[in-house]
């Protein structure tokens, strides 16, 4: 029998770059708004520090990059929540963007597959 992969469509990737130490509360808020999981990696950033003058010292050069994949129905809700919780309207607080994903795949519970008549 041929092996089967269920591919998800309508998935979007939210990437949010914030100062080190801020990712935790943003991810928590995103979970509350419906996100299922997240990945955080560490990075070095530059740009806004130099433009802030003396306040630049308050901006960590070390960043946390949060990536989470959400369904396109949820994307705006989670995007807005993360923006507000992360206070991204303040300079130096971070940057975020959404990418449309062509396809995604992961574990999908059997009972959900059954609902769609896709169980093996």
């Amino acid at each position, binding site marked *: 029998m041929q092996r089967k992969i269920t591919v998800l469509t309508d998935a979007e990737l939210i990437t949010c770059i914030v100062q080190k130490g801020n990712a935790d509360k943003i991810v928590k808020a995103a979970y509350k708004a419906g996100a299922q999981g997240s990945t955080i990696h560490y990075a070095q950033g530059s740009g806004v520090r130099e433009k*802030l003058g003396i306040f630049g010292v308050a901006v960590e050069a070390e960043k946390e990059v949060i990536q989470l994949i959400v369904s396109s129905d949820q994307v705006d809700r989670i995007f807005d929540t993360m923006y507000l919780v992360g206070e991204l309207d303040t300079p130096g607080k971070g940057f975020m963007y959404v990418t449309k994903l062509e396809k995604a795949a992961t574990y999908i519970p059997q009972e959900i597959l059954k609902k769609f008549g896709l169980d093996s």
Partner: protein
Amino acid sequence: MDKNKLRYGEFVREIQADHVYISYSDITNSSEQKSSKIKLRIIDVYRLVTPYISVRLLEQIYSLMPLALYLVIFQIFILRQELSGASAISVGLLAVIMGLMFFMEGIKQGLMPFGELIGNTLPKKVHLNLVLLIAFILGIGVTFAEPAIGALKTAGALVDVKTAPYLYLLLNDYASTLVLLVGGGVGLAAVLGTLRFIYSWSLKPFIYMSIIPTLVLTAYLMTDENLSVILGLAYDSGAVTTGPVTVPLVLALGIGIASAAGKGNNSLSGFGIVTLASVFPIFAVMLLGLFLSFNYSPQDIIELSLIASDIQTIQIPWYDKSPFVEMLLGIRAILPLVLFLFFVLKVILKEKLANSGIIIYGIVLAIFGMMIFNVGLTYGLAALGEQSGSLVAVAFSDVVLSNGQELEALYPYFLGLFVAVAFAWILGFGATLAEPALNALGITVENLTQGTFKKRTLMVAVSLGVGTGIAVGVLKIIFNIPIAYLLIPFYIIALIFTYFSDEKFVNIAWDSAGVTTGPITVPLVLAMGLGFGNAMNVTDGFGILSMASIGPIIAVLVTGLYVKKSQEK
């Protein structure tokens, strides 16, 4: 999609989001955005500055408060003594917290970029000999900038000239020479450590060659009654040097040089300098003591000090009065280092500093922080440490306090002795376990040994070592055991274990001693020992720190051997 049907998700999207779209191209194309300064609203400043301050403030509070609370609670509940001068101590501790906060941030913003830039570019541009010379001078500079060095000078005020004349001379009239020599030791360590990186030499011969002469000199000084009291100071100063300024700056330079020589990939690169930087100063201080003993007799010193105190009672200039003297010390500590780094950068490297505004901010902050820290050191840490040190003695013996108050022993002798030693043990164990630098070392070690040496194992081993070391140090003061009787055997044991251990564990073990002695533990333990020593009428209360450095070395070496054994099975 069917015309009459609307997906609920699409509907929610429409009613919820209030998004205004503009093109990023429009922003980047317009010319007015070229002026790169951003104007901040008040709320922006608030949002940026609050987390900036609170994170750094909490860091210092976490490292100081448990220790201070432990001392106070122990004093009130176990020793049943009130805290005298509580308000002055509280203000002092607050000053320590604020001072360290400013200082550490200042170092991070102001000095570290210097260090990294020099470390990365210097070895590529000039000859190795000049690089090593700069590393040497830098070693001296960072020693002056080390916050805990001030504690040695503060401790000098507590020494009685009649019972320990050479110790008094070293800590008062020759205090600057002492720091200079200690710095020279650190500088030499920086040079040899760097050479070790480049040629990948084993650390073991360095340990043998530095420890054995040190022990021989110790044994020689031990025979002279007047000189033996400086041994405690000598070994303690080794522990003082390896603090939050020296370690990162010297390491940055060393690793930079090694990687420029193409030898920076060794996983053990970072190790070894700390070890040597804590051994060479011991030797240097002993030499200075020996030198003084040739030039001064104990009587000379006592007379000198009497003359000096006569002059002082007549008139003390304003800059010699507390708190101004602490503030001046702060400036004197940082400025030479900054000027030297600046000189290297401008004259030798002809490099320009990016972000000079932020660097100036960092330097100003570091000096300011050092000034506050020094004031706090005198009124907070040293006062609290001395007080609890002198009161611990009450647990098992009758004590006459410095203000003439007589106190009777609280507990029966052996129980009291147990209380005092347990107090010291818990203090050392707890303070070490909470040290953030140890946590960082633990992670490095776990990675280095592919998980065979667990972070937890290392932290517990080091803490056990420090706790036991401090407890032994307290016993030393109680029974007035000459410090050499303890140090020589312990170091010989450490040498024997070193011989049988792997290179990896040798590096870790000898470095772990330096990690544990931060800017809070050092002044507190020093002052405690001196207060305790005075209460017990012992000539010198130094030596507790040195026991706290040798303790973890042995503990980690033993653990390393155990780990190796259990792997072979």
